[in-house]
């Protein structure tokens, strides 16, 4: 039976509904993680296409085709950013069988809605991320003969991605919370679980306290993990000198250094070859 008092009731609910809470957390995280990932891929693709430079005078056909594609992508971004996700979920879940005669399962519908929603937001973020990279980076890449594709994949996108990492994190956290609107199509995510737990014994305050705590724990863990990933992407603060700076030491006065750091394999090999060539005897110790 339902015990008296706030904390005993919370414990009671947790015990009684542990399985549905666990399933709720699982679905919430599954939908949020997978959809954020797919959404980022969509956003990346759309954002990249939207920043392809076109020159009407050079290739008119390509220019006009791109204009059409860009228009369609723009429409996609505007429509999905401009309407509530809850309505989109209902629209797609109930509308698809009606219009196209295809029935989507609840979960696939959930993935679809959250992904294309995230994609619409990410497209703008990616576009901004690409535009924020100094044009000098592109010129540097062009000057060594890279084409547009090579410039994007090896120079611009890695930097743009690093810069939009906080936004990707933002989207993940928003998605964890916003999966709650999928209750409308019956996905048994965390809010759905909470509602059923609350309804059975009329313990609304207790049940929603539990949900608050769970949501916070999930988003907090994710935001910390993302910070760690960002740090990783930045690489070490310091770098190891591979050997002495020849110019600082003055030409001809430098020699092979003892205790070289791990990463110097190549330098050592190169120096060894050179030393052999010069037949100089003093390689090795300081």
């Amino acid at each position: 039976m339902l015990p008296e008092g706030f904390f005993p009731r919370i414990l009671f609910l947790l015990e009684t509904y542990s399985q549905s809470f666990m399933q709720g957390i699982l679905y919430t995280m599954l939908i949020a993680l997978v959809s954020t990932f797919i959404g980022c891929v969509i956003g990346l693709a759309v954002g990249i296409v939207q920043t392809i430079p076109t020159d009407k005078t050079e290739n008119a056909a390509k220019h006009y085709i791109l204009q059409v594609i860009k228009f369609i992508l723009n429409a996609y971004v505007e429509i999905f950013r401009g309407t509530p996700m809850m309505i989109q979920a209902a629209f797609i879940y109930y509308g698809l069988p009606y219009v196209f005669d295809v029935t989507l399962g609840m979960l696939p519908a959930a993935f679809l809605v959250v992904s294309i929603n995230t994609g619409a937001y990410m497209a703008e973020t990616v576009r901004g991320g690409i535009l924020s990279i100094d044009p000098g980076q592109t010129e540097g890449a062009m000057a060594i003969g890279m084409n547009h594709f090579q410039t994007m994949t090896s120079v611009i996108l890695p930097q743009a991605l690093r810069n939009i990492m906080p936004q990707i994190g933002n989207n993940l956290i928003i998605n964890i919370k916003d999966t709650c609107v999928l209750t409308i199509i019956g996905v048994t995510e965390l809010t759905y679980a909470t509602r059923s737990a609350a309804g059975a014994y009329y313990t609304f305050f207790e049940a929603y306290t539990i949900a608050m705590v769970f949501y916070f724990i999930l988003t907090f863990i994710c935001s910390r993990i993302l910070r760690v990933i960002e740090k990783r992407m930045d690489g070490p603060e310091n770098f190891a000198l591979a050997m002495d700076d020849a110019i600082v030491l003055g030409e001809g006065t430098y020699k092979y250094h003892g205790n070289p750091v791990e990463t110097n394999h190549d330098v050592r090999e190169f120096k060894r070859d050179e030393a052999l060539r010069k037949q100089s005897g003093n390689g090795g110790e300081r």
Partner: protein
Amino acid sequence: MSENAIISVRHLSKDFGSNRVLRDVDFEVHEGDVTCIIGASGSGKSTLLRCINLLEKPSGGEILFHGSPIAGHGFDPCGYRAKVGMCFQSFNLFNNMSVLDNCIAGPVKVQKKSREEAKKLAMFYLEKVGMAPYINAKPRQLSGGQKQRVAIARALAMQPEVLLFDEPTSALDPQMVGEVLSVMRTLAQEGLTMIVVTHEMAFAKDVSTHVVYMADGVICEEGTPEEIFEHPKEARTKEFLERFTNR
């Protein structure tokens, strides 16, 4: 006009909207030439270099590379740029890559060399500019002079036929100018063909084989360093040089 010029610029003009920045520019670069382009700010020096490297599209005239125009159908601008290197005033090193990767990216991605081979090349040129110890550093961890030396090594790793420099020392603190100029001096002595836009008159005087003085989008006067610096003919050249030597 001789046949064996690497680069010939013929009647080149460039407009930005209604602003005519280059007018009927004519000059040639032969193998082993070190051509210094001097002139006041805004006279079109950068634009000329950027046209040569196709970072800007010329509005008129033509540029020939070994006698054939660098425009038109079937011309491959990327392949051309791989043979004509460029160093920028603001270095433009790839911020997401280490010093070594900056120098390897071109040979591997553009010239399709193996990583091993590219590494050897990169190390050779990094050694030449004295930056071999810094292969693990990211650009943000380097001083301006070091960045420019890496940028030079990155361009050299492509083994270009011509190397263009756009005011390579203008963004540097005075004590760093020397290290970059000394590297460039070495390259000139080794016979690398270079076109250098610079305000370093001593460098232009000592190192170049040919000096071009530009004013308001035209070549006002050109000749050997002696001709330009010792016996300038044009009044504007004299005036420009006086302003520089009196500083």
